[in-house]
């Protein structure tokens, strides 16, 4: 063990607790945002990321026009939020570094937990695998098959599970276990 959160100074325990609480808050709103813009089912995730690009016909040989009548109600129809390739490039560029930093911060907490090495390796791998699955799923959904939406869902759940496991263990070991409770 590189350091032991159970025996750490109370200020470090407090810092870790605040960090975990802050991540928890952002994860709650992250989940709300996913429910608003993508959803929690493979079909909704596929509609968001695969979008019409998956079924887009080849461009016509010559430009052609289709006219159809519209009603005001058609303008008011809720739009399915879609993420096209340009936006996905941008999302990947800004989100993946952030997820890496969060996984690293949670990984540092894991290093201070009293765990078997194999469990620690597993947890750290889970923390970093989650964003890879998340964004890998998005790209594969867009360019390979909508079925890969399941990977994005798995990534999202893995992120949540990783956070909850690390938080539960850290809070218990820092504040509840006999060694952690020592002054």
């Amino acid at each position, binding site marked *: 063990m590189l350091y032991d959160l159970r025996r750490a100074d109370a200020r470090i325990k407090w810092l870790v607790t605040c960090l975990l609480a802050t991540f928890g808050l952002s994860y709650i709103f992250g989940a709300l945002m996913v429910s608003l813009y993508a959803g929690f089912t493979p079909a909704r995730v596929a509609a968001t990321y695969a979008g*019409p690009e998956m079924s887009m016909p080849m*461009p016509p040989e010559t*430009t*052609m026009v*289709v*006219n159809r*009548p*519209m009603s005001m109600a058609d303008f*008011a129809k809720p739009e399915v939020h879609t993420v096209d390739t340009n936006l996905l490039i941008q999302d990947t560029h*800004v989100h993946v570094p952030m997820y890496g930093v969060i996984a690293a911060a949670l990984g540092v907490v894991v290093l201070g937990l009293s765990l078997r090495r194999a469990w620690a390796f597993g947890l750290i791998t889970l923390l970093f695998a989650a964003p890879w699955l998340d964004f890998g799923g998005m790209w594969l959904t867009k360019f390979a098959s909508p079925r890969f939406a399941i990977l994005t869902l798995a990534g999202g759940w893995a992120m949540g599970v990783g956070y909850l496991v690390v938080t539960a263990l850290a809070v218990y070991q820092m504040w509840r276990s006999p060694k952690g409770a020592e002054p």
Partner: protein
Amino acid sequence: MSWLIRAAAVAALLHITPAVVLVKRPDAVQALLPGADTYFAREVHLSDTDAHRLHEAVDWSPEDGVLAFYTGKTGSTTVGALEFVRVDTPHGPLEVAVGFTSEGRIRGVIVTKATVEMKPWVLEAVAGGLTERYRDLKPGDTPAGALALAGRAGNLAVYIAGEVDKGVARALAAYGAFYNHVRT
């Protein structure tokens, strides 16, 4: 540890905030096609050649290679046409509605969507008269809203005006080349 904090701060700053609707599409349609009582969608499916031509002109390709124009009529009289153009910025997507008169000049421009982060910049730019700058422009003209706001509004409002300029330029190029010049 400081690199970690700096990296987190940079990542947080770059995080794209959720989209917000500034003006609902039906409201934009009514404002930009005043008096119209019937509407028609005119979807122009671009060939590779035409898509390339448009891309060369304004560094933009419409989603799925389809330009959507909406025409409004009162009885048999055409009121004008309307386009919704999306601009992807480093801060998230922006949507601009550009309405044309039946003579082919810009009747009005409305920013219909932005992100939570960009909303105050858009509101400041619009309050500074940004959208008035586009009135009467015709295909071939260059929108210069950002230039007009420079020095009279905050840097971020001027920045967002530049992004709105891009949307208007795309609408002008698309309208000029493809609204009336493709046979159905």
